[in-house]
């Protein structure tokens, strides 16, 4: 095949490697600054199936760096516009456009259909969603993020390597770190960083070279400073994600819930009087907390056990990491019980509190 001849004559790739590319399915989240070069090179390389998810439309200020678009696609959805451009570049592959927002509800089923996920999104809530869905579906994630003149690249969830949460466990609050539209970005920067992502995807598929797993590549375009930062896998962070697997799809509603869930720290919780502790984790999860003051009502059984909620008290709902407990608080709200709090962190803090309490006696 003439199209891929320059790949095929490389002994490291050959026809066998080119066939691997043709048989691969890659999903690209976001067709913006990073997504455009990723999509361009993956399409040219002959990746057999490429998915593009983006709900946004092309605007004039995108054209400074989002090289798949032009005057003729202004106002058109980016996934649709990118697909049209890429089909012209390579009409021998399958390109699927998802002109929608990635959500907790649709992420797992979309991710299932692909071998590799590429994160080219532009906000933290999507980045953490992409990470969590990649962990749950066990897909390697080729990550990158950019800021003005600097970029970060890494490969997560690859052969028991770290995840994004092992690097940055805590999701920054919305607005705490500005994105490109708020602060500006050098147009060529996502071109450089996105091309590095495309390179990692191809290496992953071909099994050649050294995959950027277990470390983050940091790049500064102003002085060509490149650093590699070693990151270790944190079983605790991975487990936190696996713990929300069963409630994952429902997490969107929780975020959009009209009445905000009240989150409480352990310090504030223990200062309250007249409270009811409720452990909403499944039974037999470590650490087990057996204390007369703690009720055990697993999240899945909560609706059937509303009679156990002591209405004259305030409820402190807790789980392993403060995610299931939020869902529990949302369920209680839907049943007109507005006296509950979701404990910010989780069971380890509760255990520590009760251990100290026993000791004090």
């Amino acid at each position, binding site marked *: 095949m003439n199209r891929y001849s320059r790949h095929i004559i490389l002994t490291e790739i050959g026809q066998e490697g080119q066939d691997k590319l043709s048989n691969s399915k890659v999903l690209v989240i*976001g067709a*913006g*600054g*990073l*997504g455009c070069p990723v999509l361009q090179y993956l399409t040219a390389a002959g990746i057999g199936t490429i998915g593009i998810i983006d709900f946004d439309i092309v605007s004039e200020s995108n054209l400074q760096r989002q090289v798949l678009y032009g005057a003729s696609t202004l106002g058109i959805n980016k996934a649709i516009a990118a697909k049209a451009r890429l089909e012209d570049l390579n009409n021998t592959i399958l390109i699927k456009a998802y002109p929608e927002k990635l959500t907790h509800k649709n992420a797992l089923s979309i991710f299932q259909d692909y071998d590799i996920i590429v*994160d*080219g*999104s*532009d*906000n*933290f809530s999507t*980045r953490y969603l992409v990470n969590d869905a990649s962990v749950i579906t066990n897909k390697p994630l080729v990550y*990158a*993020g*950019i*800021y*003005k003149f*600097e*970029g*970060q690249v890494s490969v997560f969830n690859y052969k028991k390597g770290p995840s994004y949460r092992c*690097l*940055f466990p*805590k999701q*920054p609050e919305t607005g*705490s*770190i*500005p*994105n*490109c539209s708020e602060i500006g*970005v050098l147009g060529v920067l*996502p071109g450089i960083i996105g091309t590095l992502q495309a390179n990692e995807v191809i290496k992953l598929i071909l099994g050649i070279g050294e995959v950027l797993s277990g470390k*983050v590549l*940091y790049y*500064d375009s102003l002085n060509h400073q490149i*650093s*590699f*930062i*070693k*990151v*270790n896998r944190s079983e605790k962070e991975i487990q936190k994600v696996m713990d929300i697997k069963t409630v994952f799809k429902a997490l969107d509603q929780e975020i959009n819930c009209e009445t905000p869930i009240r989150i409480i720290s352990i310090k504030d919780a223990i200062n309250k009087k007249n409270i009811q502790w409720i452990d909403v984790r499944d039974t037999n999860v470590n650490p087990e907390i057996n204390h007369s003051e703690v009720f055990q009502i697993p999240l899945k059984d909560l609706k059937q056990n509303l009679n156990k909620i002591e209405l004259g008290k305030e409820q402190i709902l807790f789980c392993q990491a403060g995610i299931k407990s939020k869902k529990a608080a949302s369920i209680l709200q839907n049943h007109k019980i507005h006296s509950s709090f979701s404990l910010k962190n989780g069971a380890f803090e509760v255990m520590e509190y009760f251990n100290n309490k026993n000791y004090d006696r």
Partner: protein
Amino acid sequence: MILSIKYFGLLAEVTGCSEEKIKFSGKSISELKTILFQKYEMLKNKDFQIVQNNELITNETKITATEIALLPPFAGG
């Protein structure tokens, strides 16, 4: 000892420099953080990880190297 500290991304804007040297007589990362937070109050509200010898470390880690970097997450794409 004299530590060389690099600030990546928006942290360089908070501190007004991308690299500086500071005198440090403590042992742990949390002691270093206290010093930096005193010097740059705005740093307290920022999310970042600390890198020593090109390796991510936690609050409890002892400082053994003189090359430290503060790495924030980047949202942009």
